[in-house]
């Protein structure tokens, strides 16, 4: 089982490798990937540097091209695929059918992973992508319960990658237009959710307020931890007689570590750590803990338990200092 760590820049990539990642995933510095943030990601030269470094260490590098190509600039996405092929990346993470088709035809040797943004939540969708575009791995959306993951693992031959840790998307990825509804920019079209340029912080004296495109996402009392105003993690009002609450989800991170033995027994091929937007220090720490956990589980899955030190480290690195099993656990739903 592979440990796959995020890298938004070369220092994060090195931190991932040094701390035991089997593979890293990166994006290009343009709108072709779902972490299109200022100052993040690699240009073509850095991508080659990254691929060389990773290969010197005998690990793998995956490149995410997982937004949907615009009709007036489709070439930019195709050229990103070309660039990846020439940079020697080991796999491409794709979501757009036009790019899946282009890659499968143009670069038949290229290993294709189906991005979570393609939203393949069931065996019919997975088999469809595998047959049509020779997809060799599918990244499962974070909307499935562990029983559903099991069912998929047992009914398809396609290797599966799941999210292990990091920010929790609570909507079926690739089918969420909430961000473009509120700001005009969405993960599918622009590569960002709740983009930073629409965020505004205001200190009213009594409260700290976070806004997204002028709409109040949350209001924090002094001393409360104020998180980034991701639109689905704000406090809103559903019932006028009740106080505002986290109507969709609390600020929390996904942590599936306690499911490690089960994920391993299901033959899940890769555990993905979310967070290309995170610092090198974050990537290094999270990778190190997961490396230890995976090694411990491999040694003795029956005896595996989450060490309190790992839990502590991961919680301290989590949104709102709390973690959840998310949709893996039925009760979350």
């Amino acid at each position, binding site marked *: 089982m592979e440990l796959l760590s995020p890298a938004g820049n070369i220092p994060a990539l090195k931190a991932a490798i040094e701390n035991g990642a089997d593979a890293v995933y990166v994006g290009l510095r343009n709108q072709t990937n779902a972490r299109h943030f200022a100052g993040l990601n690699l240009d073509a030269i850095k991508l080659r540097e990254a691929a060389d470094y990773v290969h010197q260490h005998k690990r793998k590098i995956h490149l995410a091209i997982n937004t*949907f190509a615009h009709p007036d600039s489709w070439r930019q996405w195709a050229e990103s695929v070309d660039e990846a092929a020439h940079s020697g990346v080991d796999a491409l993470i794709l979501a757009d059918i036009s790019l899946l088709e282009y890659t499968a035809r143009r670069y038949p040797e290229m290993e294709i992973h189906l991005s979570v*943004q393609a939203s*393949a939540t*069931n065996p*019919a969708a997975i088999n469809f992508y595998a047959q049509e575009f020779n997809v060799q791995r599918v990244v499962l959306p974070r909307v499935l319960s562990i029983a559903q993951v099991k069912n998929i693992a047992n009914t398809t031959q396609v290797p599966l990658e799941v999210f292990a840790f990091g920010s929790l998307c609570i909507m079926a990825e690739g089918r969420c237009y909430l961000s*473009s*509804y509120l700001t005009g920019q969405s993960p*599918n079209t622009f590569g960002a959710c709740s983009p930073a340029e629409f965020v505004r912080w205001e200190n009213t004296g009594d409260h700290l307020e976070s806004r997204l495109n002028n709409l109040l996402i949350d209001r924090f009392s002094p001393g409360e931890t104020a998180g980034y105003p991701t639109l689905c993690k704000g406090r809103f*009002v559903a019932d006028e007689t009740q106080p505002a609450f986290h109507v969709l989800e609390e600020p929390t991170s996904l942590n599936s570590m306690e499911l490690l033995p089960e994920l391993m027994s299901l033959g899940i091929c890769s555990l993905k750590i979310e967070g290309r937007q995170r610092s090198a220090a974050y990537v290094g720490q999270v990778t190190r803990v997961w490396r230890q956990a995976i090694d411990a589980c491999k040694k003795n899955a029956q005896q595996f338990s989450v060490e309190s030190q790992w839990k502590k480290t991961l919680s301290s690195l989590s949104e709102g200092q709390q973690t959840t099993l998310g949709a893996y656990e039925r009760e979350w*739903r």
Partner: protein
Amino acid sequence: MSVSGDNSTSSMKFSLGPIHYFWDKNRVETFYRQAADSNVDIVYLGETVCAKRRELRLDDYLGVAHQLREAGKEVVLSSMTLLESPADLREVQRYCDNGEFVVEANDMGVVGLLSERGLPFIAGNSLNCYNPQTLRYLMRMGMQRWVMPVELPKRWIHDLLTASEITDVRDCFSTELLAFGYLPLAWSARCFTARSEGKVKDSCELCCKHYPAGRLVKTQEGDEMFTLNGLQTQSGFRYNLINDIQDLMGMVDVLRLSPQLDDTFIWLQNFQNQLKQPVAFPLSKPDCNGFWHDQAGKDLLIASQT
């Protein structure tokens, strides 16, 4: 496979999308009796949001479908959007195997199921088709009509439909756009209506039945944010392109109205009247039309007509 496009007809058609809310059987049947008597051209039937909603099963929908067909309507069966469990897949296969009516695929897995049966299909608005290459691919798989993703602006749709990659097949499919109703914006494993009542999905008691128009969520300052509809999250404002019909002509062949608790057929009439005698509707909250105008979806452009 032969696909027959209907964009050769000059006049705009109107459709009723699937009912997104959980209505009791009586309300659903009443609604479709009105639909049969209305001037709507196409009706989409089926549960697209939550598999736990079973007021009507496929056989019930087929019964409604036959009545609508007898009333001269084109009927399409809409597939579930978020397919997760083996039971979800079995049910959607029954939709695909209905033997009479075309299916709207709302998941790529359904495209696969339909194409392997050699059946034509409608590509629903939750399929990620953002460029002409993808559209062409879907056509090859059997797509007859493309329902555009809700977030696409006019500029994008124009670029897509006039792209050289599809010039030779542009006559072989028609296009449809959701033009009225609360926008389906997201799907989750979690039921937000249940959560808003302090319940979890497994013991939801089908509480979405108490919100036949969804449950509105506001910011702490009272601004409309979202409408909760089970595991679907809808817009807080109602999408309304009634003042944009002239603009849509030539690009969109079918305008979709999403069934609302009240006044759906009055709005259908309003839309149809715009074809004969366009007037500027005075829109205000809770209407929005931002997506079409390349803005945040929630925005409302007033007097957008040129």
